């Protein structure tokens, strides 16, 4: 493998049902940053059936070049034809860096492709940067330190340790990247990219998965233990009806409503939603504690949450001892405003 032949930062532009997934734009944003010190271009790899219409938006979000693999076999995601398509692109165009979103699709595709092209892959990265490997040159072996390597950082052991990984001797350097971590650029209206159509050829074969049915389920009763965002209410919410404002917030942030024991005892919510020592233990990315005083019996069930946001009228409430962010005030005023602000921010992002 001649490493010198490999050039450019490539991004797998995931699309489903002819819609570009947000992760593709996030990766393009990051790819632009990585391309700068390497003095190279950003290439998006778009795989699907009748997807050429998506090129413009990819260009607006920072792709200098787009390689399109367009074939009826690629209508729905299936491991085999997609892996064949992406591996063929890599073998043909020899990228230095290949980024894939760590979505359900990307986590399936990335490792398959990396095995096919015989290179390293770091999964679920949260930080990517260009730097030296090893970071500090080993005395007496200074000449072996490689520059301009992709340093891929990811949480391991359930987030208890952070590992920075490099792939110095193989190309491309592949990473799947956690959605929501990287920043999109502000789209450049009317930007155009060079479009290359590439088709490695597909023969329908019996190794393909047959898709019988695609189910888009909306769960009506969410399990609070699986939720990434919990909007939790306590006695301070005041009534079953008033949980409406928490439900609105939960909808805005894509979360689920949970509650404290006091709420269950008052008959406002079912026991399934209770967080705490005698309820469920939860570890969401974000936990809103609204009108919850924060007795240890409750805190024991949620203190492992990544970020805790507390809203309570009593500034001495113990919940503030565990909260990362706290607001002292009337939840009836704050929660609707927060919901409105989040909705506005989301609307701005989606335009």
């Amino acid at each position, binding site marked *: 493998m001649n490493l010198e032949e490999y050039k450019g930062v490539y991004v797998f532009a995931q699309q489903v049902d002819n819609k570009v997934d947000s992760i593709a734009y996030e990766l393009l944003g990051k790819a632009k940053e990585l391309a700068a010190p390497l003095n190279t271009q950003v290439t998006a790899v778009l795989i699907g059936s009748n997807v050429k219409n998506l090129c413009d938006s990819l260009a607006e979000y920072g792709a200098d070049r787009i390689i399109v693999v367009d074939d009826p076999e690629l209508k729905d995601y299936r491991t085999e034809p997609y892996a064949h398509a992406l591996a063929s692109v890599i073998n043909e165009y020899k990228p230095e860096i290949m980024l894939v979103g760590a979505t359900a699709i990307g986590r399936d595709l990335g490792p398959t492709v990396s095995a096919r092209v015989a290179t390293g892959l770091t999964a679920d990265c949260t930080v990517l940067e260009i730097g030296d490997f090893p970071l500090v040159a080993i005395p007496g072996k200074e000449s072996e330190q490689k520059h301009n390597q992709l340093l891929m950082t990811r949480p391991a052991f359930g987030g208890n340790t952070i590992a920075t990984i490099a792939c110095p001797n193989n190309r491309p350097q592949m990473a799947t990247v956690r959605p929501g971590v990287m920043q999109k650029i502000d789209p450049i209206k009317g930007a155009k990219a060079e479009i290359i159509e590439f088709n490695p050829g597909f023969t329908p074969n019996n190794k393909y998965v047959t898709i019988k049915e695609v189910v888009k389920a909306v769960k009506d009763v969410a399990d609070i233990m699986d939720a990434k965002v919990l909007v939790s209410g306590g*006695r301070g919410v005041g009534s079953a009806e008033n949980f409406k404002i928490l439900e609105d917030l939960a909808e805005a942030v894509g979360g689920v409503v949970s509650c404290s*024991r*006091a709420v269950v*005892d*008052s008959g406002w919510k079912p026991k399934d939603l209770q967080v705490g020592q005698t309820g469920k233990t939860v570890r969401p990315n974000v936990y809103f504690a609204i009108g919850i*005083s924060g*007795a*240890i*019996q409750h805190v024991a069930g949620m203190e492992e949450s990544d970020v805790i946001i507390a809203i309570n009228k*009593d500034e*001495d*409430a*113990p919940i503030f001892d565990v909260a990362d962010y706290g607001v002292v005030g009337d939840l009836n005023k704050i929660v609707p405003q927060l919901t409105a602000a989040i909705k506005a921010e989301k609307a701005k992002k989606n335009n």
Partner: protein
Amino acid sequence: MDFSLSKEHEMARQLFKDFAEKEVKPLAQEIDEQHRFPRETVDKLAKYGFLGIPVPKEYGGQGCDIQTYVMCVEEMAKVCGTTSVIISAHTSLCVDPILTYGTEEQKKKYVPDLASGKKLGAFGLTEPGAGTDAQGQQTKAVLDGDEWVLNGSKCFITNGKEADVYIVIAVTGKVEKKGKMLKEISAFIVEKGTPGFTFGTKENKMGICGSSTYELIFTDCRIPKENLLGQQGKGFAIAMHTLDGGRIGIAAQALGLAEGALETTIEYVKERKQFGRSIAQFQNTQFVLADLATKVEAAKLLVYKAAAKKDEYRTNPKISYSVEAAQAKLMAAEVAMEVTTKCVQLHGGYGYIKEYGVERMMRDAKITEIYEGTSEVQRMVISGALLK
């Protein structure tokens, strides 16, 4: 030193015993299984004056000494742990602090109804974050014009929801002590039915199942300014001193539970036959009973000594009885736990069956090691005094 009870005491004990056998024992298993507060028993206790035993006659009480009160709790506990704690929480934790710290107006307003049993009393100190560390109070009381506004909650309150008058401890501000900002804690009298004062969870307990244990919730609950009990900022001392007295009551309850279990077991081992003779004829039974009876007697002397000390205090407020109360409660509770456990064992398989009642005594005994200060708190009090 005289270890015999006076004639009056003996007569009082007989009265309590008869009442317990006739009125309390028949209900004991039913209220335990149904987790039901025995309102009918409380009404009868009121009728007999058993809810105002150590209360001076001028406030509508019986004007008896602490020893008499202790024997009442003890006799009830022999047959029913629930009934004994209703009396103890009412008398020691609600009536006693009003008598000790209340103004003349407060005493006149509240004590007669409480002593006659027309009203029942309770004590709200514990919070989810403030159990043994009672300084960790979160409930707040803020003076607004001529009313105190209470916000917060209390948990595990005995006689909760059933009681009419509550002593409630709350934070009224911050005070500087030795350069540290500490909470200023005060005590209040709060009546059931005050707007903003509601009841939350009813606890589902292992024992004393008929006792009503509730959460108290205060949401902008306004009470008159004159419902402050004692001086502002003295609430912690009031609570602690109240508990000293309450511990004698719980020690009496533990003592009664142990005695009740022992009496039942002595009857049982005489009747039960295995290997062709009563199990009372086996030396293991004899030795176990000997040990248990000796421990019960030791606990009893400690409980009665603490009662005597509190009686002395009533004529001489310089006397402290907190160490005696702590020792009595520690010993009696641990004896109760051991005695009831071994009594279940001596009953064999039947001891594990609800019908025989001794399993209930074992479940009831465990709480005496926990409430009104855990056994560990009693050890803190005792060692603190030893190492002064």
